[in-house]
């Protein structure tokens, strides 16, 4: 990964704010698939009774890993800007979610469950950062 690149998912190929329709379509298509995948995962994964947000945690961790992997690999394999818009911004950007994470965490706190709250927070952040890093390491070397 490029060091000190705070916006690696940015759309640098079209500076100045003009977005061609193909760019929007790529993001929308990825967003459709990513959202459906997350919803499907939510149907498949039922957390333990008591409302621990297991499905969202899995989605956020898996998505963070895959995004790290994709961006690192993309540095070495040439693909067009719409590929990044589809996979990184659209699909993985939508497969993971911050809003649900926040509301889930708030819900656990409001329910007076400090351990579950701390566990969810720690697993999400430590897991998310760790897996994104691992994805980058792997993406830097795989074909």
């Amino acid at each position: 990964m490029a060091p000190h690149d705070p916006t690696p998912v940015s759309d640098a190929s079209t500076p100045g704010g003009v977005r061609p329709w193909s760019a929007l379509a790529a993001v929308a298509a990825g967003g459709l698939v990513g959202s459906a995948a997350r919803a499907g995962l939510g149907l498949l994964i039922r957390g333990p009774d008591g409302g621990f947000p297991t499905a969202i945690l899995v989605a956020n961790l898996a998505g963070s890993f895959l995004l790290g992997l994709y961006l690192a690999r993309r540095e070495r394999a040439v693909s067009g800007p719409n590929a990044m818009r589809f996979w990184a911004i659209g699909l993985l950007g939508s497969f993971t979610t911050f809003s649900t994470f926040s509301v889930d965490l708030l819900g656990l706190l409001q329910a007076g469950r400090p351990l579950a709250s701390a566990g969810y927070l720690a697993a999400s952040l430590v897991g998310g950062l760790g897996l994104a890093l691992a994805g980058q390491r792997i993406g830097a070397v795989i074909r």
Partner: protein
Amino acid sequence: MSLLTVSLAGAFGAVCRYLLSGWAQERSRLGVPVGTITVNLIGALVLGLVAGSGSPESSLTLALAGFCGGFTTFSTWMVETIGLGLSSPRAVLNLGITLLGGLAAALAGYTLVS
């Protein structure tokens, strides 16, 4: 049917995220990912509103929740934090502002309607 609603709303949310975060980031001189912070905090606020309204699962609540799911992103937050240099003050800021801002936004939305 509900899967379709969530997916379409999520696609729309993704496009809105793409446009708004790009717009915000281009105008920012701060060394943190203002674009992602913006969409994540707005999305947390809106989903807080949805959660606090306590309305039964209608097409509207599904669509709003789906929109927020596509509009916000966890993975980009993670990758951008790493890009700032994991032990750097800016990375800590990006984590802290997003986390605390998101909780505050969700709480504000929740409280506003309940």
